[in-house]
């Protein structure tokens, strides 16, 4: 009975001392200690922290964010920086895990950084919104689309539209194209997929479209979607909303859906971006016709802003930027504009600048203002895939700026 107590108190000792050591080591070697306030501007440098999923299953998005941010910062610094100060980026990896995201956030804030750009996914971002509000640190997420991430009077803003908008556009598109009965196939285990299903469902009710068949999959690792689409065929719907990511659309969903006999429209959301890179070479790719999705921007858009960005990105990194890159790029410029308006890097001042609903931001993903909760009121592009059988390309269909009334 006695030995165990001894062990415990030793454990307690170790706990306290080792944790203190561990954290001390990492902070003394970090940037200048800031006690209390979280401003990190000296006359020479402005530091912005970024959080992105550099490892884990969404590493592609992490790379998209870090490359676009680097490009934007390079351009800004070359043009003289913000208010004369050069911009520095400190990146932290959230590994697509909410706990690690919180750790990354805490580590950045403890280094005295008051302006943070991140994270990429809704699940991770919602883990740090409350911490951002409590620590009074600005949080600008380029691509987290879950509705409730931004609320009024808070420190959280975003550069993209919310899920309720995306799901509703799909429902409006269905109505507009004349479909009164639709089906849905979604992933029950994924925040993004489920959120889009919910908003699509709600919008369908509003527009008077019947959701006749709903099927789901247990995880993002499922390979076979044939049974789900077979039940869509059985229900007789000609429009299916399937909000998944690019890594299952290309190789699995579209081919299996067609093979199951489903010949109607398949519509998705911004997760479909970069699908043409993930299709089966040598297969009959004409199955990709009649596939639509909503996205934040279209790289083939001929406007000057978009083309300048696309060309600069391709010159520096050798590949076409995807929507996440475009959003991250815009987010950096949003910070630039807010810092210039506020005249300082104090997070509260920047926050007030961002909360100003009259400020207009012009970016690659459109010209927009933020609404009272911090979400941009911007349009979404509807893009479709076309294929001649051997290659899949994207075709711009429409831009939807506002949702139609019921």
């Amino acid at each position, binding site marked *: *009975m*006695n*030995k*165990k*107590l*001894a*062990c*415990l*108190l*030793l*454990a307690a000792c*170790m*706990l*306290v001392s*080792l*944790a203190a050591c*561990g*954290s001390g080591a*990492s902070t003394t*070697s970090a940037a200048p*200690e800031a*006690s*209390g306030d979280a401003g990190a501007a000296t006359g020479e440098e402005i530091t912005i922290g970024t959080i992105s999923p550099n*490892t*884990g299953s969404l590493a592609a998005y992490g790379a998209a964010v870090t490359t676009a941010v680097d490009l934007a910062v390079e351009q800004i610094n070359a043009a003289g920086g913000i208010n004369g100060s050069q911009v520095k980026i400190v990146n*932290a990896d959230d*590994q*697509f*895990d*909410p*706990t*690690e995201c*919180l*750790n990354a956030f*805490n*580590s950045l*804030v*403890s280094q*005295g950084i008051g302006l943070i750009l991140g994270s990429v996914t*809704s*699940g991770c971002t*919602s*883990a740090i*919104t*409350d*911490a951002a509000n*409590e*620590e009074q640190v600005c949080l600008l997420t380029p691509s987290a689309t*879950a*509705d*409730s*991430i931004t609320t009024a009077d808070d420190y959280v803003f975003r550069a993209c539209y919310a899920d309720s908008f995306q799901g509703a556009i799909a429902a409006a598109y269905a109505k507009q194209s004349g479909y009164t009965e639709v089906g849905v196939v979604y992933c*029950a*285990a994924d*925040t993004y997929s*489920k*959120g889009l299903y919910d908003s699509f469902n709600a919008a369908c009710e509003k527009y008077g479209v019947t959701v006749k068949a709903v099927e789901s999959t*247990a*995880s993002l*690792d499922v390979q076979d979607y044939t049974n789900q689409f077979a039940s869509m065929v059985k229900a007789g719907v000609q429009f299916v909303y399937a909000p998944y990511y690019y890594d299952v659309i290309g190789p699995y969903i579209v081919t299996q859906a067609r093979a199951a006999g489903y010949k109607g429209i398949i519509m998705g959301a911004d997760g479909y971006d970069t699908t043409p890179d993930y299709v089966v070479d040598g297969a009959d790719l004409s199955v990709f016709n009649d596939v639509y999705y909503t996205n934040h921007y279209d790289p083939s858009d001929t406007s000057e802003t978009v083309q300048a960005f696309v060309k600069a990105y391709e010159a520096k990194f050798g590949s076409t930027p995807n929507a996440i890159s475009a959003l991250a790029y815009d987010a950096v410029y949003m910070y630039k504009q807010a810092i210039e308006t506020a005249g300082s890097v104090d997070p509260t001042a920047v926050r007030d600048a961002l909360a100003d609903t009259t400020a207009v931001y012009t970016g690659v993903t459109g010209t927009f203002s933020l609404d009272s909760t911090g979400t941009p009121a911007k349009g979404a592009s509807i893009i479709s895939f076309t294929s001649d059988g051997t290659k899949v390309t994207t075709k711009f269909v429409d831009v939807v700026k506002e949702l139609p009334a019921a």
Partner: protein
Amino acid sequence: MKNRTAKGYIINTVVIAAVLIGFSVLKGSLGGSQTFKLILVPSLWQCCYLIILAASLNLVLGFLGQLSLGHCGFMAIGAYAAALISLACERAGVFADKSSPAFFLVLIGCILAAGILAALVGLLVGIPALRLKGDYLAIITLGFGMIIVNIINNLPFAGQEGLSMGSASASLYKNGLGFGTASKVTFVWVAIIVTLVCLVMMFMFIRSKYGRAIRAIREDEIAASASGINTSYYKIFTFTYSAFFAGVAGALYACANATLSTSSFAFTNGGILNSTFIVVMVVLGGMGSLTGSIISAIIMFILNYQIKNGLWVKSLTGFLGGMFAYPMLVYAIILIVVIMFRPMGIFGTYEFSLLNISRDIKNYRAKKALQKAGKKEADANE
């Protein structure tokens, strides 16, 4: 012996009290600093539930000798149970905000309920699963871990929409159990006390007849059963007991995070809540030594933290840098190295004890002297 026991109690109580007082003093002086708030306290919370997880898995893996890969499933149950009960209490008006005394009662109640619920599920899982041994048990528990996560996903009030979408997570934070940065500092003593209590219970278990029985079962199940030990009873009891602690650890996890997402508990998660990571912790510390599990949990946590956020890691380039970008790779290598060269782990079956420290040091010195003498003799004989 009675004197010795009393002496042991006194020494231990005094030292624990001293440590807790020392910690409060530390907290008082450092309390306002950013480092303390943002780094030390969240780290302390994470260490607490990791320690409980590692020690409780050691009960099954080290002392009972059965590999159970579903530990994170029980943690998930505990976390969701605690979070949902606290939200329900808040909505029913039992407490208004975190500073009211009613909240403290709800907190304790949630932690207990989380443990009990996880224990119940552990019982249900253990009864069929523990009829099997070795490899089959590992797969079955792995399967159960996956099933539990799958079921939570499909529950309408939990799952993806319940507790990880923004609005629900905001409620968890503001209204329910989730602690923000400031609350974490105020309530950190709860985490420490809960961890200490859990460790006391585990040590008592090991020192009692239950501990002796399961060690006998580990060595030779048939001989144990022939000696009159009811092996099924002890195996299932240990499994349930360890699931209880996993549930408590889950409740602490729910406190420390404002959102809960089932992807954190899934087997394919690359982060530190992976069941495999916990197995690494237990093996590294020593299967059969609770002290070892505690120490290795802390070491692994610090290692994980340094890999993620340490600045020296960011300056590594090339393949080494790429390797550290995948912490799981580092842990897999550690596991293989430990298993091959020191399968007993760092501590083997040694348990640290303040009371016996002088005796242990004397024994160690005697052993080393004996080895040296033996070597000298062997050299002289050649």
